[in-house]
């Protein structure tokens, strides 16, 4: 698989403070890459470096297989649509006038602008002043500005920030659709459930370091789901195992691997604990994420 974005040891330091620490990003073509991390973990800084808006302290960046240099940047930039931190938009102008400005900046034709507005369903609001837009409309206008150039890569920094569930769902559907058309989408968020279901590849950042990168499936496989043992005698069971908690159906244990599970069941059965069933808990991505980033690290 081709990687649209690849970085090697990408590092950014502000004075002594290391904000992005040795990232080896790999964003495969045509995927939605979810870039996750708590607030302040370095997501925006990383994206700014990818777009050449901030210079890395160390490391290399390759976009579409080409090293990012001032010369290559000018050639690559037109094929990258982006929205970093706050959505852009001149408040004293209408949505359409803002799009016109972006169009002139990049030499786009009217059809591209109209299509971008239609894609984010902003056509009927295009003649309103952006100042009077809701947050969701501003985010959508920002995405339309990124989309108008027909990019091969979209870099969106927290595009769902501050949106209601319906708005998040809308953007999720849009991004999946765009990826279906072959556009590579890198989207960041500090909230897991906003990115869950849309990203097929995840990169998880904590304190500027990548603590996980890979498919959703691999992420799940990395962490062991809790073991639930259904029994009518949890108190008896507790006497034979350590670190278990009582749940309505029996007891629950975490961090028990396959062999340990077999061993445990045998021990309980020998102790005459009535076992009605043994199963693994349904694991949410949130749990896995919490495991990785450490509880309390998330906002």
């Amino acid at each position: 698989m081709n990687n649209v974005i690849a970085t090697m040891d990408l590092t950014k330091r502000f004075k002594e403070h290391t904000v992005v620490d040795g990232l080896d990003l790999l964003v495969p073509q045509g995927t939605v890459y979810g870039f996750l991390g708590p607030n302040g973990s370095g997501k925006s800084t990383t994206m700014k470096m990818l777009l050449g808006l901030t210079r890395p302290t160390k490391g290399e960046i390759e976009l579409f297989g080409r090293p990012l240099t001032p010369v290559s940047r000018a050639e690559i930039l037109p094929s990258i649509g982006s929205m970093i931190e706050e959505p852009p938009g001149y408040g004293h102008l209408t949505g359409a006038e803002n799009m016109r400005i972006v169009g002139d900046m990049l030499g786009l034709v009217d059809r591209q602008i109209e299509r971008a507005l239609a894609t984010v369903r902003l056509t009927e609001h295009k003649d309103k002043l952006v100042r009077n837009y809701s947050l969701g409309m501003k985010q959508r206008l920002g995405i339309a500005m990124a989309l108008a150039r027909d990019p091969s890569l979209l870099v969106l920094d927290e595009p769902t920030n501050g949106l209601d569930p319906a708005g998040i769902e809308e953007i999720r559907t849009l991004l999946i659709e765009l990826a279906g058309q072959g556009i590579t989408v890198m989207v960041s968020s500090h909230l897991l459930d906003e990115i869950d279901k849309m990203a097929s590849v995840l990169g998880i950042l904590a304190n500027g370091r990548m603590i996980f990168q890979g498919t959703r499936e691999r992420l799940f496989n990395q962490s062991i789901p809790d073991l639930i043992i259904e029994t009518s005698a949890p108190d008896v069971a507790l006497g034979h195992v350590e670190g278990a908690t009582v749940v309505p159906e029996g007891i629950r244990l975490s961090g028990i691997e396959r062999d340990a599970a077999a061993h445990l069941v045998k021990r309980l059965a020998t102790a005459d604990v009535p076992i009605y069933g043994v199963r693994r808990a349904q694991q949410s991505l949130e749990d896995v994420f919490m495991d990785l980033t450490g509880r309390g690290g998330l906002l």
Partner: protein
Amino acid sequence: MTRGVLLEFRKMHRLRTLPLLIVLVVAVAALSSASLFSRGAHATLNDSSARPWAALLLSYTMIAAMTSPILTAVLASRQTDIEHSGAGWTLSATAGHSPSRLCWAKLAALALLLLPATGVQSLLVLGAGTLAGITVRVDPAPWALYTALLYLVNVAFCALYIWLAARVENQLISVGVGMLGAFLAVFALLIPSELSRLIPWGYYAVISHAGQNGGEVTYVSPPYGWILGFFVLVGSAFTLATRHLDRAER
């Protein structure tokens, strides 16, 4: 570059730049010529030894010094502030337009507007003089030279305010500096030219082509070398300072 300037005119839409400019131009012309229509003035209008045109030019210089720093600061600040509030620096940067290029485009756009505005302003003052009944022949050279230099000083200060407005997000700063500049510019008219040329806003006074000489108003020749030096200094400072903006971490 021309595309960038065109974009600035698009952004100017609804910023009320043009109405603001027109009101100020008319106001400056009216204030400059107000004294012509006072009762005592009438006697001097036909007296060539009283040099009524030079007196009018001096009055114009005074009013222009008082208002131009504020006008240019407001125009530059409005044109630049939108990039902060609209996340325009990043938007432009992702299209390959650096902040310095944006600042130059803003300067070019405002300079294009100020050119006819300053010209019309001087013509209005001359028109008012004729209307008030000055029959003495006007001397075109000092008027033309003063107008040209006033225009260039205005453009120079636009550059300063654009940089300031880009650098400091709080626009009270750039407009406040403009107001302070207006005060300094008027103050500079009252002190010797040797001192005025050391104050940046003093150049609104340094370019004056009329002056008081022992109770009489006459045409004077400003120190063109110093004025040229000022423009070169502002030009290089703007080039360096905006280039520095490109390297700033946002």
